[in-house]
């Protein structure tokens, strides 16, 4: 089977899986007792705000929350007409967020690029730090390079993210005048992109990238190191040495490619983690990413918003595994997915 045909085939499996996932997602977010509006009304009552209660009642009818769950699902997907006719995911209508009182598409759209930015920075950080360090630690195993990088990595890994963030923020602010929280200086908000704004974003990204990235980086580094060590003894490495290759080039071209196999398998996780990777970290660091939005949505059972974000992440997951499967074949020509005849 050629790669192209394989990719097409995988694409259709993906659609099927997506459908299954959509059912599961919908069920899961409806698992906790209660629903958005009842919670909302209770919250309003508890905090003595009579203002919103009547409006909540309006929403219940408008969005068919009074119907059975399966009907809600069908309406949400667009397989069944809602109170105002057909309009579901498959029609490109992503639903309405009660919590933010705005269309889901708008909310997600706004925070998406920041989310991707933050996580992209973290992913880049992971790769930029972990790749060379992992290779170096393997090539120079049991030397100070190896030990230091392991120690620093595990330090990052063993410190709870929030604590690490707080420490970095506090001392970073004190000694390096780093900003505390946020993703850019608020004055730049809504402004056109300028060099100053980019700089502000970059400075704000330092701590979050570090916090999100360290654990990932050290994890990747250690595993890469282990895989590399396995490969370094292989004869083909000797051949490469006999060719007179410089170590850096030799290591990255030959053993790294083999050692990279498990990571390519996990590239599938990279895509969704660009969106959902740092939910809890974003929440505690106050980054305006999709993470805090998702958590709020889940906690308040703002079902369309959370369902959409989750579906989106699921889609990315599926796409990720698909890409990783295709990449695997490209990475290792020996791999075929056919079954083994027994």
């Amino acid at each position, binding site marked *: 089977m050629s790669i192209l045909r394989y990719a097409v085939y995988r694409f259709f499996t993906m659609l099927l899986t997506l459908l299954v996932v959509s059912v599961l997602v919908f069920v899961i977010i409806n698992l906790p007792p209660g629903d958005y509006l009842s919670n909302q009304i209770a919250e309003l009552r508890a905090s003595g705000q009579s203002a919103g209660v009547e409006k909540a009642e309006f929403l219940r009818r408008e969005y068919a929350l009074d119907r059975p769950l399966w009907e809600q699902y069908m309406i949400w997907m667009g397989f069944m007409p809602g109170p105002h006719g057909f309009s579901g995911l498959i029609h490109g209508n992503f639903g309405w967020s009660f919590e933010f009182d705005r269309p889901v598409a708008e909310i997600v759209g706004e925070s998406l690029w920041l989310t991707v930015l933050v996580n992209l920075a973290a992913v880049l950080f992971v790769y930029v730090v972990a790749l060379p360090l992992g290779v170096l630690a393997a090539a120079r195993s049991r030397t100070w390079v190896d030990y230091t990088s392991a120690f620093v990595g595990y330090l990052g890994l063993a410190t709870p993210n929030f604590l690490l963030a707080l420490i970095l923020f506090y001392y970073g602010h004190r000694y390096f005048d780093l900003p505390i929280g946020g993703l850019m200086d608020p004055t730049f908000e809504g402004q056109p992109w300028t060099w100053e704004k980019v700089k502000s974003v970059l400075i704000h990204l330092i701590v979050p990238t570090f916090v999100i990235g360290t654990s990932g980086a050290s994890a990747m580094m250690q595993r890469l190191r282990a895989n590399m060590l396995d490969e370094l*003894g292989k*004869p*083909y490495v000797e*051949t490469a040495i*006999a060719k*007179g290759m410089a170590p850096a080039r030799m290591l990255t071209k030959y053993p790294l490619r083999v050692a990279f196999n498990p990571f390519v398998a996990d590239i599938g996780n990279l895509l969704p983690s660009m969106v959902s990777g740092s939910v809890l970290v974003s929440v505690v660091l106050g980054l305006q990413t999709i993470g805090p939005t998702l958590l709020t949505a889940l906690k308040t059972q703002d079902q369309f918003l959370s369902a959409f974000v989750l579906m989106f992440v699921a889609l990315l997951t599926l796409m990720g595994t698909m890409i990783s499967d295709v990449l695997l074949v490209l990475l290792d020509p*020996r791999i075929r997915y056919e079954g083994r005849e027994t």
Partner: protein
Amino acid sequence: MRPLLSVEDLTISFGPGQTVVGNVSFDVERGQTLAIVGESGSGKTLSCRAILRILPRTARITSGRITLDDGTKPVVLTEIGERRLRSIRGDRISMIFQEPMRSLSPLHRIGNQVSEVLWLHRGASEREARRQVLQTFDRVGFPDPERAYKSYPFELSGGMRQRAMIAMAMVAKPELLIADEPTTALDVTTQAQVLGLIKELQQETGMALILVTHDLGVVANMAERVVVMHKGRVMEAGDAEPMLKAPAHPYTKQLFDAAPAIPAETAPAPPLPDQDLILDMRQVSKTYTMRAGSGWKPNVLIHACRGVDLKLPRGKTLAIVGESGSGKTTAARIALGAEPPDPGGEILFRATPDAEPLQVHKMSRSQRTAFQRQAQMVFQDPYSSLSPRMRIQDAMTEPLEIHRIGDRAERRDRAAAMLDRVGLNADMLKRYPHAFSGGQRQRLSIARALMLDPALIVCDEPTSALDVSVQEQILTLLEDIRDRHNLSYLFISHDLAVVARIADEVAVMRQGLVVEQAPPETLFHNPQHPYTKALIAAQPEPDIERPIDLKLVAQGAGAPDSWAQAFRFTESVIPSLVEMEPGHKVRCHV
């Protein structure tokens, strides 16, 4: 004038006290060929690797100096820094490793790996490198250099990989070429072609050559000087001619005496009986698809075997010889069920004379298990067929464990005894595969196949890496077992002398087809097919007086469409196999 390379008093050891190479000294002059011969495991490979300082992690050069002459002042290779060494490796000195399969990266295309040398040391552009590499590929005998260029190692036959290694070492035209058994996997015509190429290059560029080999015929044809090694020490060293004529050291004598040769004229043997076939391959074909480079181009089809019909009577040896890449390994693997044949072909196996023949590729689980107990394979590439993380003891006892034979101690004793029979020490049981020499691994592979007392063994070039005396020992062992246990062999080899000795019938293959088939006596003395003739002519003899004309024999039989009308075949028109005389089949138009 100083020699190009001189090795003085080299000693290599693994850990304290484990000296494996002791006080080895030799010199290599420019343009000269130094052959290192010697017993398997005697430290030839290690000595060669020491020159480039590519030794196993645990090995230490405990003493000795290796100097490379730089024209002005000598460079001490054992002392210079990594960086300087790097500029010498692959550029001034290059090396052909003994085991080509493992020595090529499995994930990179051959062309890429070979061109890399040019990128690195000659600063060649990608196109220029490609051109040169393709040219070299052509010269080392690749029928289709383009295809080889974009193949991955696992898509090539053993001999092709070896040629890729050779091309890689030679493409940059180094000053010194270290060739560690470079032609073990090559049929004799291709071998002649490669050796001829090396010679040519020596004349062209004054390249010096260190040739490690066990084939005294090759030594006789190539070497000016010879070093004989045994158990890590140099036994005898000197000019080739006097040494081959009158070996001085007892070991050398012993070695030279053991060299096999195609026996002189004997009476034609009767054809093999046709009943009681233990293995019957009928119309076996195999087509591989090579993954196309991009997703758009169609995949390339490779016909590895085309309609192979082979019958192996019980207790006999059927040898397959033939061009490298002609589908010998493929046929053997199919025979044992390692790969399915194309639809239409079938393989019948009959465990005992009166048993129902079973189709190898359509067996039930229990039948398969029984079959696997009785049929064993010695792989062409022993290194790859041993799990790198399994100690030899475990690898050896594994077949017994699988088939639940004996208890722990028994199994171990059997493994130790078997090692002993193939000439290895029982104390090697605790080693991992990588800690053996090439020939030792090959013997391990044979030993493992023998562990289960099988009825059928498929040997894919089982002695290619063995020096003649050990080869002799192994062949004797194989014959001995065959005679005692009525074992049957499917024996693939390119060494016609070995084939002549052990085979009851020989099939000659070329381009996936059996072109001639007859008992060895008949075949070697009355070859009919042009390819067979070329093969026999190309067999080098260990006699320095009778050098073969490498140029001439390297042309072999030429392309099939240049053959005499009777034998000519093209892609579409293929003559059938005709029985010329009883038991002598030739593929020709009648």
